[in-house]
């Protein structure tokens, strides 16, 4: 059984690499996380034998995982909605200055260039 699990883990690793090479738009990140979570579940369940272990240890693990989620989601509740009241700006001053400079640069470049979007820093 350990061998089967190991095989699945290898397979999932390949799968995640392959899927990340494809452009799935918004789905790339969730898919990668889904695969990683599956792999983690396999390791926890079989290599660490939590599936056959005392229930209290599963509880311990679940509580640990739960609080990671709490930490993450409550922090995002701030950072993802920063500036929802007008008393705080969304972006930093650095970003605003950079955006302004980019805008200025495009205007200086003449009317034709003004419509072109700022090029993304790098491509896949």
């Amino acid at each position: 059984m350990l061998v089967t699990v190991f095989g699945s883990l290898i397979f999932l690793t390949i799968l995640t690499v392959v899927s990340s090479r494809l452009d799935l738009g918004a789905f790339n990140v969730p898919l990668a996380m889904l695969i990683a979570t599956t792999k983690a579940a396999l390791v926890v369940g079989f290599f660490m034998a939590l599936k056959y272990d005392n229930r209290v240890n599963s509880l311990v693990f679940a509580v640990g995982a739960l609080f990671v989620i709490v930490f993450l989601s409550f922090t995002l509740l701030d950072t993802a909605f920063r500036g929802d009241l007008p008393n705080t700006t969304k972006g930093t001053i650095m970003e605003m200055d950079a955006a302004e400079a980019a805008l200025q640069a495009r205007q200086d470049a003449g009317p034709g260039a003004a419509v072109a979007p700022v090029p993304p820093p790098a491509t896949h």
Partner: protein
Amino acid sequence: MAQPAAGQPAHLKHYFVSSDQQFDAAKMGMWLFLITEILLFSGMFVAYTVYRVWHPEVFEAASDLLDWKLGGINTLVLLGSSFTVAYGIQRIQRGDRKGLIINLLLTLLCAAIFMGIKYVEYSGKFEAGIFPGGNFAPVGDYHGHDMANYADILFLPQFFSIYFVMTGIHGFHVLVGMGVFTWLVIRSFKGDFSPEYYTPIELTGLYWHLVDIIWIFLFPLLYLI
């Protein structure tokens, strides 16, 4: 100090009633320790997510700078080491001491390969001037990317700070694991373990699998997406 009463196994501490109780306690203790490790890493995952949500395009661009092939090999190596640990435990449960020792040595080998590859990755980055945070000063050519294009991207240094801190702490855990495995190999040679008593291996195994799990998440987050 009270000695274990006659008929009790030598590893049983006097304040425990039975071997089972002692083993269960040790294992629960280890699981608790593991969740503290998870929460320790969670800080880094939160930092990663926050900056990624703010600047997704920067993080995508940055992850292109990491070599997914090296990361992928390291993933496989680490998974392999997890397997050998689990398999080694199965061996000792069946009384096969030699099998245990072989598997532990294989684990150590995998860990060494992992660290070797990490060394290659780190030194390559340092040469290209990729340092954490404020020291970020990219120069020259790195794996076919002209680093000059990356010099002024806002928040790119943050990605590498997170990269170095995460993989750094992870690598530190691998090193600690290697130390403990070496000690276990020595003890196995001495014949300290038997199907009745292999708690230290079981616990170190749990630790090692956790280190593997962290990497399972780090790999896609840093190298792929």
